[in-house]
């Protein structure tokens, strides 16, 4: 299970890459493994939407499950990865790069304080699987 350094992780299995106030968001390798083959991604938001922490980003649908992806922080959407609409399998094959989901401007970086660093997220995963 891959857990790259330099990213922040939510216990609900989203990752966030912060660059000043700009952030990129996606789901983790653990999440895509749990879902198995993703067949569809439905975005719940549009570009320029203002969102609140906890709002739904998208629903990710596999053959056996449909999971919601939620925003770990509030902010404004600046981009959505349209590639995922025709190639949802990118979430399985490349969850941290080609499978990015949204780009947003974060209002308040302190909201991200409760997120975990790579090591802590890995430990959390081990705890869950055991």
């Amino acid at each position, binding site marked *: 299970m891959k857990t790259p350094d330099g990213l922040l992780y939510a216990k609900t299995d989203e990752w966030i890459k912060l660059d000043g106030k700009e952030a990129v968001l996606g789901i983790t390798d653990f999440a895509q493994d749990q879902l198995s083959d993703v067949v*569809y991604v439905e975005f*719940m938001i549009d570009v320029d939407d203002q969102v609140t922490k906890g709002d739904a980003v998208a629903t990710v*649908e596999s053959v056996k499950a*449909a999971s919601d992806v939620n925003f770990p922080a509030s902010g404004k959407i600046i981009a959505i990865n349209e590639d995922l609409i025709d190639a949802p399998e990118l979430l399985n094959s490349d969850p941290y790069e080609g499978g990015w989901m949204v780009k947003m401007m974060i209002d308040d970086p302190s909201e991200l304080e409760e997120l975990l660093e790579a090591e802590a997220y890995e430990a959390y995963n081990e705890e869950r699987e055991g």
Partner: protein
Amino acid sequence: MFTPHTPQEIVEMLKVIGVDRIEDLFTSVPEKYRFPKLDIADRLSEMEVLAELNEIASANASTDDFISFLGAGAYDHYIPAAVDMLLQRGEFYTAYTPYQPEVSQGTLQSIFEFQSLMTELTGMDVSNASHYDGATAAAEAVNMAFHIFRGKRKKILVSRAVNPQYRETIRTYMQGQENVQIIGDEEGTDFFDENQTFIEKIDNNTAVVVVQYPDFFGRINDYTKLIESAHEKGALVTFVFNPTALGLLKPPGAFDVDIAVGDGQPLGIPLSYGGPYLGIFTTKEKYIRKLAGRLVGETVDDSGNRAYVLTLTAREQHIRREKSTSNICTNQGLMVLAATIYLSVLGKSGFKQVANLCYQKAHYAADQISRLEGYELAFKETPFFHEFVIKTPKPVNQINLHLQNHWILGGYDLSQDYPELDNHMLIAVTEKISRDDIDEFVMALEEVAHD
């Protein structure tokens, strides 16, 4: 009855489990309430129960006894012998929901064929594997539209010319949602100018507009302006259709409607005092993922053979649970098969014949009745398919009583649902009715006018 256990087997089984008596298996059931005495009739043998059911049935009269002109949501069509013969195959009717595709290809392929037939019939992109009936399909259409807008549009516009029971069902279904307004069918809404007043009510808060085609009064309305206005305002349009009519009429898909629903009872399903019937639900491709109910898709197995499976199941209740938009599980499997067989055995030619016969006979009947003194065709300006409304010289229930003495079942008394339509009867004519039947009906109507 149907428990095959011999006394010896019961003893052996109890021994394996490790208890002395069957009663010992129920210790977790509170003693106070255990083994209640049930005050119901003692059991009957199969022979006796058949005699009893025959006796109960004999207290009925059926459409076999009458010449029937009753429609209003359920239609007496001819069902070819092939339909029930195939339906009675145990491999079909005692099979379970096809969750295990390897042993359910019979059911799955026939549902796939049903989906294809429904999209062809309606001109829409996709059909699901059925809903309970036309009324619940209409309610689910409204529910689906509501969810497509994520609850942001709270206005539902429903025509008063939609079947009254369907409108009631829509209201029942939507009462679980906050602040939803269902309007457009208030008492006093004008039937003649309905289209226009309706169009004026569509705005940016309207989720969906629901109209019927042909409508409850049998009329074939031109909804093009209405559909244009609705789409301009971003609202969806749902047609409630009659499947037989689509053998002759332009299908809903040709009008760019978003959802088309109806009841498939006319497609090889007996009247059966109101159920089980068949909810048909079709929509545009872009709404596939919002579609409630089962969907069968084509795929391949591990040897490359073509195979059919339930697909997009992640939408359904057993996976989405509280996030699913509908809770539907069991639907109308056997009725789906009946409709598929009916349409297959009638085929293009037979189905067009049925639609045409209904149209021709209904128009002959309307023409003959309108020549009678005291009787008049209501809604004269609008074309109709196989149902039409006549104004009668006396209250409809009086007329129907007289007709019954002639072993004729008259049409539906519209005053029950539309207070301003007293002395208005809704008459349906299907391919089963002969010219002689119609002439007899006309004679009897003439008689009762002069009583």
